[in-house]
């Protein structure tokens, strides 16, 4: 089959099972867009309003489906606009393939119009990248791109394709990539390490599991649940581990980290065996490493050898896919109950409930709190919605209070903390899970970073529910200014536009509320809507998120106020 490079790209995407991509056209990628036009019955292209939106939408899609998200952009500014999303996907291990157009081969290096060294720019934030300058190289490189993006610890891959390579014809054939000799995505589990891990777990008096997104990416949710239940171990999730287990599971003790729950943070420094599964001891989880779980034996399950001993030294490291390693571990685990140890978590929860949660979720003050909005969404959605959050106070409140019953239901920018992530990510999440409710929770700051994606929602009639928790501040930075910079509110006050009018401009049904009496009915109305819906909730302007581990402090120093 003799076809152009651009048509070959389409056939490669179809062969990889791709039926939906996000992007934005431009000069150097026009041959591909011409083919997208011809193949629109097989491959849907969603035009976002900015290339960054395309990457976040692809990420949202990937996070809820487990499939590879695809984003396309032209050369130069189109390509550089992808970088934030790529960096986000890299640090949050999201499988994504980005295809960028590039100036023709003979112009490379000549500072041609819209030429930029996107390979050089994207290198530190991609799992792999590659420039294609000949049409005949396209199938092999794209096959490798998809394989690398999805396998092992997933991540973003960028393929930069010169315009001549899109135009030139060649004899097309396609073979899936089955391996790359210098790349070992699935380290073989070590039986001895698994036995040592089992021995430590079986002998532990106060074992504690902290799990992350590795459980979701490895699809090891069942194995995790079995381990937790069989060995009777309290388990806490990281921000990206959210939804890998039911929120209401009796042994789910909440979230670790800077704004995590009181018990799991405090008791990290009381446990005797810390079992980390598919998490990477991020600094927002550990606080000061010098005082982190020093009393405990550490067992670290991870697929990425570079994570072992990177931040926290493991006494036992179990390399491998979480599903495979947990399956090998489970038969060696003795049935156990650690009731008095578990009760310590319950006691700590009671303290946190009385001092914080009660006032947040069931407030008595006039102004609405963010947490009560989340709780109403929990109630109205029956814990079944996919919750997409942006970055800041509302994100931490969402992670603390949103409830989950189903895995792959939490989409947020964890590692990079990308404001502006949620609105486009929600579009991708919805398109990846049309049968599910997708609710985006966004702050007034982050919302305005990618607000133009309302156009994408309008054009595609994407029925996402958008909730802006508006405190007229960059709330998280304001909180830090209050606590650590003597309330000098430098550039954190936002004078905001009429968000409802903006949504109306895009013909999206919208409403603003500021009183408690309207909350329940409005959220019901929003979830009952079959179309996109925008809800602005005016919340208390100067609320703080607690508990909090100040940056660089020990998990033991978690503050309740």
């Amino acid at each position: 089959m003799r076809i152009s490079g651009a048509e070959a790209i389409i056939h490669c995407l179809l062969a990889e099972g791709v039926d939906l991509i996000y992007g934005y056209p431009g000069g150097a990628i026009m041959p591909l867009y011409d083919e997208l036009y011809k193949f629109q019955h097989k491959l849907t292209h969603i035009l976002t309003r900015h290339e960054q939106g395309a990457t976040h939408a692809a990420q949202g899609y990937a996070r809820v489906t487990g499939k590879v998200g695809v984003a396309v952009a032209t050369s130069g500014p189109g390509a550089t606009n992808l970088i934030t999303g790529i960096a986000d996907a890299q640090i949050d291990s999201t499988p994504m393939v980005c295809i960028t157009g590039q100036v023709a081969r003979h112009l490379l290096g000549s500072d041609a119009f819209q030429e930029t060294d996107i390979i050089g720019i994207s290198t530190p934030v991609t799992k792999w990248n590659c420039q294609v300058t000949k049409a005949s190289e396209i199938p092999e490189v794209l096959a490798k791109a998809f394989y690398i993006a999805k396998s092992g610890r997933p991540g973003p891959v960028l393929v930069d394709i010169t315009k001549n390579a899109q135009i030139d014809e060649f004899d097309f054939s396609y073979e899936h990539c089955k391996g790359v000799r210098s790349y070992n995505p699935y380290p073989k589990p070590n039986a001895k390490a698994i036995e040592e891990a089992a021995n430590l777990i079986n002998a532990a008096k106060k074992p504690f599991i902290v799990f992350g997104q590795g459980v979701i990416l490895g699809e090891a949710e069942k194995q995790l649940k079995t381990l937790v239940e069989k060995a009777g171990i309290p388990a806490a999730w990281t921000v990206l581990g959210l939804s890998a287990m039911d929120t209401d599971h009796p042994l789910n003790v909440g979230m670790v980290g800077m704004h995590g729950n009181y018990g799991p943070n405090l008791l990290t420094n009381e446990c005797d065996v810390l079992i980390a599964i598919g998490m990477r001891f991020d600094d927002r989880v550990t606080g000061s490493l010098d005082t982190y779980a020093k009393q405990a034996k550490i067992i670290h399950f991870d697929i990425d050898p570079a994570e072992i001993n990177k931040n926290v030294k493991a006494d036992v490291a179990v390399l491998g896919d979480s599903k495979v390693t947990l399956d090998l571990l489970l038969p060696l685990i003795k049935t156990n109950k650690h009731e008095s140890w578990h009760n310590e978590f319950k006691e700590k929860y009671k303290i946190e409930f009385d001092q914080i949660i009660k006032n947040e979720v069931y407030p008595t003050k006039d102004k609405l709190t963010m947490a009560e909005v989340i709780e109403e969404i929990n109630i109205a959605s029956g814990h079944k919605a996919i919750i997409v959050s942006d970055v800041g106070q509302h994100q931490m409140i969402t992670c603390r209070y949103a409830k989950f019953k189903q895995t792959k239901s939490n989409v947020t920018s964890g590692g990079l903390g990308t404001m502006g992530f949620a609105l486009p990510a929600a579009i991708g999440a919805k398109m990846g899970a049309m049968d599910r409710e997708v609710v985006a929770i966004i702050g007034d700051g982050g919302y305005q970073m990618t607000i133009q994606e309302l156009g994408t929602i309008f054009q595609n009639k994407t029925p996402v529910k958008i909730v802006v928790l508006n405190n007229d501040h960059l709330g998280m930075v304001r909180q830090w200014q209050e606590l650590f910079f003597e309330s000098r509110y430098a550039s954190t006050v936002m004078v905001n536009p009429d968000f409802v009018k903006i949504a109306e401009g895009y013909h999206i049904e919208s409403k603003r509320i500021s009183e408690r009496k309207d909350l329940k009915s409005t959220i019901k109305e929003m979830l009952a809507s079959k179309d996109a819906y925008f809800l602005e909730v005016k919340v208390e302007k100067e609320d703080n998120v607690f508990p909090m581990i100040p940056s660089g402090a020990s998990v033991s120093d978690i503050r309740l106020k």
Partner: protein
Amino acid sequence: MEKKWFTISVYSENSVGLLNRISGIFLKRHINIESLNVSKSEIEHVSKFTIVVYTTEDWVRNIVGQVEKQIEVIKAFYHTDEETIYQESALFKVASTLLFDERNIQNIIKESNSQIVTVSRDFFVLAKSGRRNEIDDMYQQLKPYGIMQFVRSGRIAVTKSEMKISSLLKEFNQ
């Protein structure tokens, strides 16, 4: 933790852009690459980077892990000076008149075990291989007479113990 000299050996595919990818890992941690050499290795079509850094063992271990995780890197190792046999090479370009007028120059050539690569009417070139301090010594000795040009290569090193690369590749090919 104490800082030491480490020699990092990276076996990789020979692909465009990999050097950038690897050096970026050092850049991220603000670590200066003291010397870098890229060449072919004992295995056909496999390249070898030899990188020298001065840092702690914790950091070098992390760096090697992050280097090894790059798709086109086959395997990366780090070793201390005691675990390797290593050398650098240097070229000295010196005015020819010195060779004839300064008796001491001939002594320096003899004692330093360096070779005369070429002699022309205007200049001659000395080559010296050895440890960094030997090359530095020779530099100091020649300096008073005037060095027209000087260049030193990156460190090249082999390890005393085996680096299991061939078996790794064999395993993949099976």
